[in-house]
């Protein structure tokens, strides 16, 4: 594929779109792909994939910023940033949280790019198809679910119960695989409960309430700013890269599992300082996020297998243009250098963005949050309402959000990550169990 002006434009537009999709809560890579469909259809097929790769990577950089500064996750993969990152912000470490996240994400991206290029180089010898057997997916998901239950908090039984509730919620609606129809006789529940609505009710809305109640000084700054130091721990960058590499290619869950799993595992390694603990959790989850997002491109490019919803939209756009990625694996392998270069440029742009945000003083961040918190809440609720209306099931989103909010506020000390992840992973877990039984019975 020629490295012409169209290729460069695809990198630039992908990177800018990723930054916008990450910063604006509720848009995400999926929404961005749908909104930009008319533009993408004008590009050559290889450049559409390059655009997508740059966008998905840059989204990971900027998606964490709204979580760190405002405590509001744009998507499920940013939940750790909205918990650990926002706690750091409230304690006066906004600047460190952003820059260390940027560095961790950059390292995670480099690891991801290296794994991607090595996989392309040795695709035939590795027999990569074998990584996608149902048994392999079954084992990986079982390990991931166990880690989430064991590491999210010390309340193992509660974690297990919450995870089970999450999986049960995902069973609502018509399930074609196992031919169940739980509450599916009601049109509202027919296609199941959206995990994002569960996250919105349990985590985002209570988070907004906390934001409203945030104590502040007369100057609009946070009163409980710590004076201790927090540092970037390379071992947690390594942990994040490892988790991202192990989970990024899992169909259906990919980098969303990567970030939440890395967050849960790093919770287990206690540090003397609470702020350092938050920082380690933030760094590992954001590093895993980026490694996972790049590895999610491997099954897409080599096997035409979409592992996250936004990749499904990408395949639809290509199909509309009469292009099937199936059989194009050699094109990707032959142009691995170009793909690596595009990802490297997007990563560097993400890091540069994080560094440039560091010129903002911590007090300025705090004043911005405290003076604009009502606007932030309004934007988040409006963006979610837009998602709900676009989804066509506004009443279901409302019901789920209200129910989640009541529970989230009433039991505000509980970690709801196992429940949200159970809801998100439930469909995949049921799917692999269904196939496991068929193949082994």
């Amino acid at each position, binding site marked *: 594929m020629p490295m012409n002006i169209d290729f460069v434009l695809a990198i630039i537009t992908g990177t800018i779109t990723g930054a916008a999709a990450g910063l604006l809560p509720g848009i995400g890579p999926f929404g961005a792909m749908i909104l930009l469909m008319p533009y993408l259809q004008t590009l050559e097929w290889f450049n559409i994939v390059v655009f997508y790769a740059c966008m998905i990577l840059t989204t990971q950089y900027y998606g964490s910023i709204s979580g760190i500064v405002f405590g509001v996750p744009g998507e499920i993969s940013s939940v750790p940033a909205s918990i650990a990152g926002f706690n750091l912000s409230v304690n006066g470490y906004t600047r460190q949280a952003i820059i260390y996240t940027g560095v961790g994400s950059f390292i995670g991206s480099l690891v991801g790019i290296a794994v991607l290029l090595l996989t392309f180089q040795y695709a035939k010898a590795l027999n990569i*198809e*074998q990584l996608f057997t149902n048994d392999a997916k079954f084992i990986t998901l079982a390990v991931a679910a166990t880690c989430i239950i064991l590491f999210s908090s010390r309340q193992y039984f509660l974690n297990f119960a919450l995870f089970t509730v999450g999986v049960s919620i995902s069973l609502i609606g018509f399930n074609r695989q196992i031919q169940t129809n739980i509450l599916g006789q009601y049109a509202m529940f027919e*296609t199941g409960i959206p995990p994002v609505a569960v996250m919105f009710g349990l985590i985002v809305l209570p988070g907004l309430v906390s934001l409203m109640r945030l104590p502040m000084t007369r100057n609009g700054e946070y009163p409980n700013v710590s004076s201790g130091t927090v540092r970037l721990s390379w071992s947690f960058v390594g942990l994040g890269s490892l988790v991202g590499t192990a989970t990024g290619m899992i169909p259906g869950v990919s980098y969303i599992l990567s970030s939440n799993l890395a967050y849960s595992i790093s919770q287990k390694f206690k540090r003397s300082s609470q702020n350092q603990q938050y920082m380690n959790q933030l760094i590992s989850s954001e590093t895993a996020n980026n490694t996972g997002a790049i590895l999610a491109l491997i099954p897409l490019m080599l*096997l035409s*297998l979409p592992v996250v919803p936004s990749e*499904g939209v990408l395949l639809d756009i290509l199909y509309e243009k009469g292009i099937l990625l199936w059989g194009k694996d050699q094109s990707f392998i032959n142009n691995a250098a170009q793909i690596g270069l595009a990802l490297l440029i997007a990563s560097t742009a993400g890091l540069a963005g994080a560094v440039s945000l560091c010129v903002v003083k911590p007090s300025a961040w705090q004043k911005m949050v405290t003076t604009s918190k009502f606007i932030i809440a309004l934007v988040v609720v409006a963006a979610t309402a837009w998602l709900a209306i676009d989804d066509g099931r506004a009443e279901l989103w409302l019901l789920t959000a209200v129910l989640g909010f009541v529970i989230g506020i009433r039991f505000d000390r509980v970690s709801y990550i196992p429940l949200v992840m159970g809801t998100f992973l439930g469909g995949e877990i049921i799917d692999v169990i269904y196939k496991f039984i068929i193949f082994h019975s």
Partner: protein
Amino acid sequence: MKITKITVALCAAMGTVAAMAAEPFVYVNDWPAGGLADQMMTATFPELRRNGFDPSIEYVKGCKSALDRVRKGQGHFTMNSGKYGLDSECGITVGEGTEFRIVSEVQSTPLMLCSTDNTISLDQLKSGKTFIGMTGPDHEIVDSLLASVGIDRSNYETVIYRGTNAALAAIKAGDIKMGVFGVAGPRLAAQGKCILSTGPNRSDVPRSNDINPDSNFVEYSSKFMLISVGTPSKEYVDLFTRVFESSEWQEYLAKTKFMHYGLGQSIPGTETEKLINAR
């Protein structure tokens, strides 16, 4: 007085503009954007516009939600697939004394039993147990197809996948041996191997030598355009007869090579004809 006259004139002008504005015509679609249902609906747009309508597509999740909209008069038509509009997931019925009527039936690409593995053959299916991937709820058609070439149900097990790509990846991974494909079938026939088809090969599809040329089995996967039974026939019968005669619709059929049975175009005595004309 002058102000009153101006107001009356303005109101009259606005009324005229409102009367001239195109009437909204909403298709309700629970299939993915850009898919077959979408393309069918879009092909009717030009003639609908010429008849004073402003057509659009509203995407909803789930067939029950889609049918509910049409039932409540919030949309004009919706799509459903399966055999004569009876879909086990939606549980709807069409025809005399029921909720919906068929306006149009499009028989799309035949389903094909294919693999990326060029060594597959019908003989493999006759011994042992083979796992066959599927992406839709067309079990009955597949069972009938395999039975037509003497393959017993005990020789295979069907496994449902979420989309063609997932099924293809499972073939490559070795979980399943082959899969039943619609749209991807023709391309697989060119790049892999297809051994059975639910219909005659299309002229634009590379022929796979192993597809049984003597099979009399013909069964298509259809998409139906449905309308609520409460809609007065004068509101759509003439309109859609014109739509199906329009050059754009004919071009669409010529391009896709789909077979179509719609208002004024059904084959007398067939099941579809009875359902289309049941009013």
